[in-house]
């Protein structure tokens, strides 16, 4: 109590208030989360302005700087702003506090906690000294500050890690219709980061999941899953659900990116998932139309391309001089009836370094993850693939491509020649091996061993229906009996003749053991 009184006394004695002219704006119009403000001629684009509402100060962001007024987006309760209220400049652009304290937390796009676990940054501060201000909009690293991707981000999904590899610092789009498993892929990638860092020598990847316009129930389910798998420890969830104002949905990906940049700047590797950018584009369209910006194609504003380009361009692998950190981006786009040629999907496809294309028909055939290997591509990831994965995956792509060409003849298999029949059988076998349930990412050593066994004909005599059980038992056998000579080097990405021979003989001895039983 005495301390409080002393503090108050200091405040009162030291209080100074000079009467001087100050720049001020007046709210002239308000509605739908948008305020028109007259005055404040020197306001900056994206500057935070403070509205002196009757119930306290409220923040708005200057979006449209017009000749005689400012179009601003209200952050928070729009109902508290009324015509006639005073508005003042803050001189700051929109930013949030980023720091290690954010790990394991669920926050809104302004950095406020949503998980009921109390304040994130205490005045005393933690390891990061109470967090560092990171602007939501920031210039992407320049050419000189970057270097090529060199280390992989393993998703734990065999078909992706083998055929569409993702590098640290890459931007890989996940695209597909509704209910095709887009979020499941992103979540598997998060879950896999823990086991991928253990014993492999690779740095732990910090994950940021940005939910834009998602149902609260879905976000709750995702958080629960992350908690159950202990992945929440290295994950931050930025939530802006379907019930959030359009302004919050618009800001969420930029907030996630700013947090990712904090980890990248501190020399660490971060992975940010934007789920999804279709809804983000919709929220930006809503804001733009309310701000009376001219609508363009599909009523999106003219700068919708720039919006996503400037967001995704911030993903980078920094040079050693800049600390060597990286920010990998996995944006998600939802297509309508498989139409990838719509406006926003084509824009994002052109910005990213490749895409993972998910197909409804494959999903309903039971091929899960429903990845269309023909349309999916990774433009830079192969440079980051480990030696072991490169060795086994090269053949896989070719075999699957040949299988796709022959797939139409599957129903006439009995009339085909021996070679074609073999190719079809191998293709079916590989498809079976690449199937994976969601929430069960595989360690990279296990992925390599599985694909190696399938490609080299070790599974040819296993009936299709038994492949999953055989694979599971084989991997358990390798893990228990050949940890040192096979699993550990494969985890580190090593590959040489010795490992190859050891793997071959281990698979053979497992098969012999099975036969004997």
């Amino acid at each position: 109590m005495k301390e409080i009184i002393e503090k108050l006394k200091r405040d009162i004695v030291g209080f100074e208030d000079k009467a001087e002219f100050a720049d001020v704006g007046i709210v002239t119009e308000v509605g739908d989360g948008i305020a028109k403000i007259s005055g404040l001629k020197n306001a900056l684009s994206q500057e935070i302005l403070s509205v002196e509402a009757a119930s306290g100060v409220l923040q708005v962001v200057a979006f449209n700087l017009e000749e005689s007024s400012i179009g601003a987006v209200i952050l928070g309760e729009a109902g508290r702003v009324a015509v006639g209220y005073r508005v003042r400049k803050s001189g700051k652009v929109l930013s949030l506090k980023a720091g290690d304290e954010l790990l394991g937390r669920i926050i809104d796009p302004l950095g406020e906690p949503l998980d009921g676990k109390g304040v994130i940054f205490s005045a005393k501060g933690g390891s990061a000294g109470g967090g560092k201000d990171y602007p939501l909009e920031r210039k992407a690293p320049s050419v000189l500050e970057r270097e090529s991707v060199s280390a992989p981000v393993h998703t734990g999904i065999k078909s992706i890690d083998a055929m569409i590899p993702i590098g640290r610092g890459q931007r890989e789009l996940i695209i597909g219709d509704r209910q095709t498993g887009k979020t499941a892929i992103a979540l598997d990638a998060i879950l896999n980061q823990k086991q991928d860092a253990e014993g492999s020598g690779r740095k732990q990847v910090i994950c940021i999941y940005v939910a834009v316009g998602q149902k609260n129930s879905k976000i709750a389910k995702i958080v629960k899953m992350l908690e159950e798998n202990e992945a929440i420890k290295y994950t931050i969830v930025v939530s802006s659900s379907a019930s959030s104002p359009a302004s919050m949905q618009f800001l969420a990906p930029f907030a996630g990116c700013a947090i990712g940049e904090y980890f990248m700047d501190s020399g660490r590797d971060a992975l940010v998932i934007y789920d999804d950018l279709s809804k983000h584009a919709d929220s930006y369209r809503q804001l733009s139309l309310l701000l009376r910006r001219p609508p363009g194609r599909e009523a999106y504003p003219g700068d919708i391309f720039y919006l996503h380009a400037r967001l995704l361009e911030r993903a980078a692998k920094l040079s050693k001089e800049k600390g060597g950190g990286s920010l990998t981006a996995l944006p998600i786009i939802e297509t309508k009836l498989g139409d990838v040629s719509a406006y926003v999907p084509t824009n994002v496809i052109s910005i990213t370094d490749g895409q993972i294309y998910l197909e409804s028909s494959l999903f309903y055939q039971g091929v899960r993850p429903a990845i269309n290997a023909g349309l999916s591509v990774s433009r830079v990831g192969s440079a980051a693939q480990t030696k072991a994965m490169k060795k086994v995956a090269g053949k896989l792509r070719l075999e699957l491509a040949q299988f796709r060409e022959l797939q139409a003849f599957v129903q006439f298999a009995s009339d085909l020649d021996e070679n074609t029949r073999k190719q079809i059988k191998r293709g079916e076998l590989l498809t079976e091996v690449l199937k994976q349930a969601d929430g069960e990412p595989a360690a990279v050593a296990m992925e390599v061993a599985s694909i190696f066994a399938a490609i080299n004909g070790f599974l040819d005599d296993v009936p299709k229906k038994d492949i999953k059980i055989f694979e599971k038992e084989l991997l358990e056998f390798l893990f228990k009996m050949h940890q040192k000579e096979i699993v550990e080097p494969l985890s580190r990405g090593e590959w040489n003749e010795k490992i190859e021979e050891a793997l071959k003989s281990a698979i053979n001895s497992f098969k012999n053991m099975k036969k004997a039983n």
Partner: protein
Amino acid sequence: MKYSAEAYMKAFTEALNEHPSKKDHIVKSFLQTLSRNGDWASVGKVFNLITKKITHDSDGLVVSAEFARPLSEKMISEFKEKFSAKDHVEIFIKPELIAGVRVLIDGEKELDMTLSKKINKLLS
């Protein structure tokens, strides 16, 4: 709003400048036009812009003074005398200011000498 407040202001002031002898007719027709276009709700905003434009054209300032308590006629005239004859001075009473005065010039510059501001600053 069918037309913007700026458009109404420009049309009105230009019409007035072009036909100064028809002032009464122009004012009457202008109000009818606003009503006919369904823009009557914005009449306050349009009038403010017109006031600002006319005052600026004659090199004056639009001054809005807000006092916490009602002033006597003498005080009002003394206050207005502080400004030039070209300036447009409006006085409002706002009890929520508690004490003091707040002066707004051209809707852009403000001199706030109210008690409510001081209390807010002390408590923030």
